[in-house]
């Protein structure tokens, strides 16, 4: 919704008398979303999850848990397995404890959610920025600029994405450290954000470019040229407001993909290092103990599924609200 606010930000406040009669795109979409019960439930769930992530340290303090401290009491002396059923669920540890260390799973889950959402959200914002700007420029300039940007996109899309990320992680995180990013997890998180955005923008840029090719032929663009508007004004004030629908839909559908990709990368060992963790890390750890303590897999797995599904449903709902005629497939 933030994005749409930008689109209609100019112009003074609406007089009260006209409020019902003249509604901006944002108001229309919001009214349609409000009527969609499933979308509202999903939206509230998402807000709840984001709040959990943002206030993770506060919540952990309140519950008296923290993701780093070992609790020898809660694990057995012999094998290091959690004491009690379902991975040691107790009043002290609401979702159980980790095998071997006794670290609290609930606290890890909140901090993991924090890292996953941080990476996915930032990467999505960067993807949208790169993709939109390059797509608009490419579609409006056409000719040589379009050809150069187009070939760069082809090149990136042709890369074996996962292999490159795995292969380059060591070198590039080191390079980031040399550039002054703190060693360890900050540089690894930054690395993930960078590679996700770099490999993600061409998809959006292609969508945006296609839209620009049709929007630029409309006469209001020509009328801007005729009044002497700058290139910047034409691109970002005249054309961009007509592109929010595809951009918004793409963003809401990309974010869950990034959460999943980040989990996969962490599972493969490119993500954050212990003692910090993310969904992928927790799922990775759970593999060794799955037959004994299945809750290690199910707890982060469930949250991950809920997160991705709600995001996808919200994305679908936004698309439907923007274009009610399209219908769901």
């Amino acid at each position, binding site marked *: 919704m933030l994005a749409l606010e930008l*689109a*209609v930000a*100019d*112009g*003074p406040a*609406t*007089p009260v*008398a*006209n409020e019902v*009669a*003249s*509604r*901006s*795109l944002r108001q229309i979409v919001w009214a349609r979303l409000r009527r969609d019960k499933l979308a509202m439930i999903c939206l509230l769930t998402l807000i709840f999850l984001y709040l959990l992530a943002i206030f993770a340290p506060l919540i952990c303090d309140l519950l008296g848990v923290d993701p780093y401290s070992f609790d020898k009491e809660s694990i057995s002396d012999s094998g290091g397995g959690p004491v009690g059923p379902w991975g040691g669920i107790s009043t002290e540890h609401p979702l159980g404890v980790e095998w071997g260390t006794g670290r609290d799973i609930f606290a890890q889950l909140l901090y993991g959610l924090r890292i996953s959402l941080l990476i996915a959200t930032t990467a999505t914002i960067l993807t949208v920025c790169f993709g939109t700007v390059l797509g608009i420029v490419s579609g409006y300039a056409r000719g040589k600029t379009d050809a150069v940007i187009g070939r760069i996109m082809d090149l990136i899309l042709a890369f074996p994405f996962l292999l490159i990320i795995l292969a380059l992680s060591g070198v590039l995180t080191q390079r980031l450290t040399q550039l002054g990013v703190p060693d360890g997890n900050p540089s690894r998180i930054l690395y993930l954000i960078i590679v996700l955005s770099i490999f993600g923008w061409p998809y959006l840029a292609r969508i945006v470019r296609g839209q620009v090719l049709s929007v630029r032929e*409309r*006469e*209001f663009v*020509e*009328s*801007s*040229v*005729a*009044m*002497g*508007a*700058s290139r910047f*004004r034409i691109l970002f004030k*005249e054309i961009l*407001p*007509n592109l929010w629908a595809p951009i918004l839909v793409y963003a809401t559908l990309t974010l869950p993909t990034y959460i999943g990709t980040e989990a996969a990368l962490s599972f493969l060992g490119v993500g954050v290092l212990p003692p910090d963790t993310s969904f992928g890390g927790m799922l990775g750890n759970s593999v060794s103990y799955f037959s004994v303590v299945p809750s290690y897999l199910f707890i982060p797995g469930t949250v991950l599924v809920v997160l991705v599904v709600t995001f996808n449903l919200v994305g679908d709902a936004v698309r439907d609200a923007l274009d009610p005629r399209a219908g769901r497939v």
Partner: protein
Amino acid sequence: MSQSVEPAAGEPALRVSDLRTYFPVRSKGLFPKTIGQVKAVDGLSFEVFPGETLGLVGESGCGKSTTGRSVLRLIEPTSGRIEFEGVDVTGLSSKEMVPVRRKAAMIFQDPYNALNPRHTVGAIISAPFAVQGVKPPGGVKAAVQELMERVGLNPEHYNRYPAEFSGGQRQRIGIARAVALRPKFIVCDEPVSALDVSIQAQVINLLRDLQDEFGIAYLFVAHDLAVVRQISNRVAVMYLGQVMELATREDLYARPLHPYTHALLSAIPVPDPRAQKQREHIMLSGDLPSPAAPPTGCVFHTRCFQAQDICAVEKPALVEPTTGHQVACHFPILEFLGTKGILGPDPGLTPQAGGSLTGAAAGSNDLIREIGTDYGVGPDTPIDPGPSIWR
């Protein structure tokens, strides 16, 4: 009624000399080559004086709109000279053009496409102020609301979106935007052809009122001769990117010289069905030739009922047989000077007019009659008695 302006009065608001706009035709493939040119506008020269309307008519694809856009350099002309109030703007960079664009504006054909659907009316009409950095006395909002009132819109609808207006209202929004900076010159690209006939008259009256009030010069592009007759002081008839005839409105409609103008005028429907039936229709044979490969000599000779051998060889120059009446034709229909009204039956429009005829032209006249009959408007069409209940 707009005052008639003498063509000699002072400096023209716009002077165009030998304007040419060619579009390259490129071959497909990895390394496209220019393999030809579409000559959309091919050597136009005309002037528009302050407070005057120059109508530009012609059939689809004759380069009317391209001319309008080339004049404002929305399409880059290939060659020629464009002067606004004596200042040559042909070589100016897009930055240098910005102050020039304050003096010239454009009104578009399609009121649905010409307004950004994501901007409010207030934002659309105030855009020229924002773009040109003009701060009207009393503030932008007051200026915009004054403009809205001037063009007949409710100023309280300042915050509405274009989708909430009808076609005619949207065209008024486009007009308000065009006159916002009090330009000296406006290109009207078929401003009423997308509107209902009843709305057309309102919009034309509005354009005329604004012209009287601000002394704006219009280049009025249209294919509808009746509309052009309504608003223009002078009219230029275009065919395949070239001016065939340019005259004052009275002259052109009463005493057309060019065969093509005759053909166009004979296509105007007449409200009286009896007169309509008795009129001679000139149906041009064949299609509009491709502007990528225009005919040699006179571009119109392939379809002209007056054409003779010289027409295919030598291009007729634009001459001025009577004052202020220019025509580009080897065999202008001079016999009718001062004798014919346009809308009545016109027996003179027969091939004998221009002297001896080639067989092709005579044949084409037979075709005219045939097609005319097909359309039910030929001279020999039997009267349909109508349903039997009326008999």
